[in-house]
């Protein structure tokens, strides 16, 4: 099991456009990636490719989240997803 933490960089938090960009990237992978808020049990983690799950996660600007995935290429995939979370998409 690979694991990464990321700090939400979008000023609006992880919803609207930033969530759409992230869910789409997670959905394009051949892996199942989960997301949870830091400190919450792994069992409560949600499907990272579900925009509806991301919205109900309610992660705000500056919150730390944990991404988890298993399988070949998991480390590279998670690194890519962390980069998306740590970019302020509204500033682009």
């Amino acid at each position, binding site marked *: 099991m690979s694991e990464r933490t990321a700090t939400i960089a979008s000023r609006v938090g992880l*919803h609207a456009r930033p969530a759409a960009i992230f*869910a789409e990237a997670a959905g394009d992978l051949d892996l199942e990636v989960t997301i949870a808020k830091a400190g919450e049990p792994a069992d409560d983690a*949600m499907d990272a490719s579900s*925009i*509806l799950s991301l*919205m*109900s996660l309610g992660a705000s600007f500056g919150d730390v989240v944990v991404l988890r995935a298993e399988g070949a290429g998991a480390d590279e995939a998670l690194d890519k997803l962390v980069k998306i979370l740590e970019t302020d998409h509204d500033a682009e």
Partner: protein
Amino acid sequence: MQTFSGVGVAPGRVLGPVRQMPKPVQEPAPHAPGAADIPADVTVESQGRRIKDAAKAVQAELRARAIGASGEGKEVLEATALMAADPMLVKSAIRLLSPEAPGGARTAERAVWEAAATVAESLKALGGYMAERVADVLDVRARIVSELRGLPAPGIPASDVPFILAAEDLAPADTATLDPTKVIALITSSGGPQSHTAILARALGLPAIVAAPGVDGLDDGTEIYLDGAAGTITTEPGEDLRLAAKAWATQASTLAAFSGNNALADGFRVPLLANVGTGADAVKAADAGAEGVGLLRTEFCFLDRDDEPSVEEQIAAYGAVFAAFPGKKVVVRTLDAGADKPLPFLTNADEPNPALGVRGYRTDLTSPGVLERQLEAIAAAEAAHQAEVWVMAPMISTADEAARFASLCSAAGLRTPGVMVEVPSAALTASTVLREVSFASLGTNDLTQYAMAADRQLGPLASLNDPWQPAVLQLVKLTVDGAAAASTVLAGTAAAATKPVGVCGEAAADPALAVVLVGLGVATLSMSARALAAVSTVLATVTVEQARNLAVAALAAPSASAARQTVRAQLPILVELGL
């Protein structure tokens, strides 16, 4: 030949085929326990596949539409497309197909319905921005269920040829996806003159008739003629009506120009201003000849946000409007949140009676500081530009509130404070309210709703919700008279200058009513930029004396329709131009 009549809300005479807005999707019936209507060859697997296929089809359709869209509309469509085939939504719907699911197996339609309802509930419970996305989830649900049933997708129909859109009523979400190059007019069986349909039609310059019972039953493709000023719809139009539509098309193009210097027939000046929300609106309004801005709706800078925009963001947003009108008047309305414009960080969504709740200026009671920061931003933007900036507060009810607002403006360095007159109490006590501030602007939409105690959005109350109601015209007169009295009382003091009263509600865009308002003593009229040419053309045909006589006649009329008819009968130009 068949005729329908309703309330004309935007003028124009056009001819074209009708397309009906699909009916709202009906809730799929829960599967009764023990019922045998799920055939044996229908398995959990086959139903699951149907759900996945339907979700993918809806997603593909929304993606295709997103490609053709731009700006904010494109983003909304892309996000909704992602929701349509959301793995969590699809999985929880498929779980409900199983006989082991709590409550037993569901049909595919019912499973999607319930799964989306659960998601919507949880988003609603989160409040704020998430709660606002509930509408998107329910829209996606309606689309998937329609797809499963083989029915047309809800929403505005796609068409290669221009058409007249018929509906029971349009929702704000429908209006966001309306393509003005395809839709040439709007007709609804419900809705009122201040409904979203009406406001959208005026903003887009589309002829429209609301509250016309029966039009939602017209067959797709039926050719109709409509007259948006008269409020009439005719099927199987004859040669005379075809010529009328053709003549309108020619006139509409000549009407499109406004000189930018509005005056009555005798040279009496009545500046025509524009209602705008953004810098882009302001540039368009300036191009259309607007002599300034009579209403800058600052909430556009606040909507769709979870938190208050910074002072810097606000300075940039207001500055973009001021830049379009150097040396001209720009009247800024401070934040008007609440009722139909809720803001998560300012207003409470649980009020039992939002129109009578903490809205407009009143949000300063519950969220102090937001208004002061906004005034600070307005003052800073004014300093950076050449526009002549006036500032007014919405929903002022008393002279005390007006005085407090004026002192806040003065503390921020803003020289010209004013009030919106939308609450009947402010109109009734205008002579004391206007002693505290420099001007007033009548917001006729809310003033009508409050004077008549009739919700703006309700079709059955359309005839009450009419700014031609003699009671509303009386309130306009009381405000103008009160402003004059306030100026007299203060004679000899520094504050003695004339206190002008403007109108910035939809009433100002009705050319016949504009004549009456001028006759009642209104100094400026502010409207959608599209209405400027028509209003100016009609005002140029009357003298101030004639306008005053028409105002007296309208005030004396026993009803809104009598007032309208009496005035229209004296303004032959309206019929000539199809206004």
